[in-house]
């Protein structure tokens, strides 16, 4: 059961730490806000994803369990 990355766009202020810590999954748009092209966190990146989520100054990067994220479609 993989984890899923999600950004709360209201609280995100575009600090950009997440893209620095997890460039494998997160890139920034032209205004400095994170784009997550592939929200599923592949095996091996879980710890880095957790670290990126914890490092977000506004706690806008969310790492959620797969089944919970599926609810939200």
């Amino acid at each position, binding site marked *: 059961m993989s984890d899923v990355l999600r*950004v*709360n*766009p*209201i*609280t*995100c*202020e*575009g600090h950009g730490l997440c893209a620095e810590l997890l460039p494998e999954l997160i890139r920034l*748009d*032209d*205004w*400095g*806000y994170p*784009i997550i092209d592939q929200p599923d966190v592949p095996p091996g990146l879980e710890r880095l994803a957790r670290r990126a989520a914890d490092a977000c100054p506004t706690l806008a990067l969310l790492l959620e369990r797969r089944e919970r994220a599926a*609810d*939200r479609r």
Partner: protein
Amino acid sequence: VISTARPLLPRLLAGLDASGDPMTLADHERVHGPMPSIGAEELVDAVEHSGLRGRGGADFPTAVKLRSVAASRRRPTLIVNGSETEPASAKDRLLLSRLPHLVLDGAVLVASTIGAREVLVHLGERAITSHAGLAGALAVRDDRVPVGVVAGPEGYVTGEETAVIAHLNGSAPVPTFVPPRPYERGYRGRPTLVQNPETLAQIALVARRGPIWYRELGTEADPGSVLMTVSGAVREPGVYELAFGSSLASLLGAAGGPTEPLRALLIGGYFGTWVDAERITGIRLARRELQSVGCSLGAGVLIALGESACGLHESVRIFSYLAAASAGQCGPCVYGLEAISDELMRVADGAATRDSLERIRRWSGDVRGRGACHHPDGAVRFLDSALRVFAEEIADHHRSRCRAASASLPFGRATAGVRR
């Protein structure tokens, strides 16, 4: 054989005269009959069999919504979302100002079906005639459920359902991050059902006459009638009730026909999509057919653009309106839509660079799906269709200056006046 068939239309708009006054309770009951007594299960079943879908733009099956809120453990609230912040829509105002009893009948029936203790009608503060219509109607009704009316600020995104609930909860009238969705936790933390006035008016009819009657109009997939607001290059802009499955040509005909040859139609409002006028013959007001040309009815809006107007200029005006209407909460929406809007203005002014369009397309892709609400998605969907349908005009603007007159499309107030 003696024909006993009564005319099938109008349904919702039956009995509406030219006076401009709200229909009295006596007239309302003469036209539609008294308020029916119908059990909760029976009403949900009738709504399900009627095939009714929400008329606020989301097009979701109404019975599914009713069931999920009715099943919640806590007492829910019903909110009638009459904000109608789409500038080109007028049908909810027509219903609330002229036919308030129809909307209130539906609201009260739904409230008792889901076990709601109260009904709140949320309206824009400038919808003076809607407030008057509702106040007059509520003064003479004797409903089992208390119905309150709340005025909200005007502004495109303030009518989005989570923004409405935020406002009712005493917060800024801007969309919130979901989940939780309103049916889980909405007004005062309670499960909340948000319904459009037309949906409730349709329920008032289904409750009286049943799903078989309801399906006498429309198609198997899209039963019943629909209110459409028609504006732009037509002789008699206004709200018209048609059967689903009617042709776009008959809708234009109902609005007095075009005032000049048409260049394109904007279907679904400012979040909608442009369709080239050449393609409109044969398209009917039916979900699947509209989807096949990339459209949805939205809240039932159609804007006709004449050949004398410039589709590019009108699209740029609408897009910059949408960019300005951002609630100002999410970076990609605030900065992305603004950047796209600026670049589009350069294109329309003949000042585009070689990569302007490519940049617009890339930015459009970047902002899609990246707001808390669907505001950026709607804006770029609209823009995609503009770039496709007006490709020729865009090429022309590279060569020469555009001299087309403004098409005077309807505009509301864009901003909610929030931070940023």
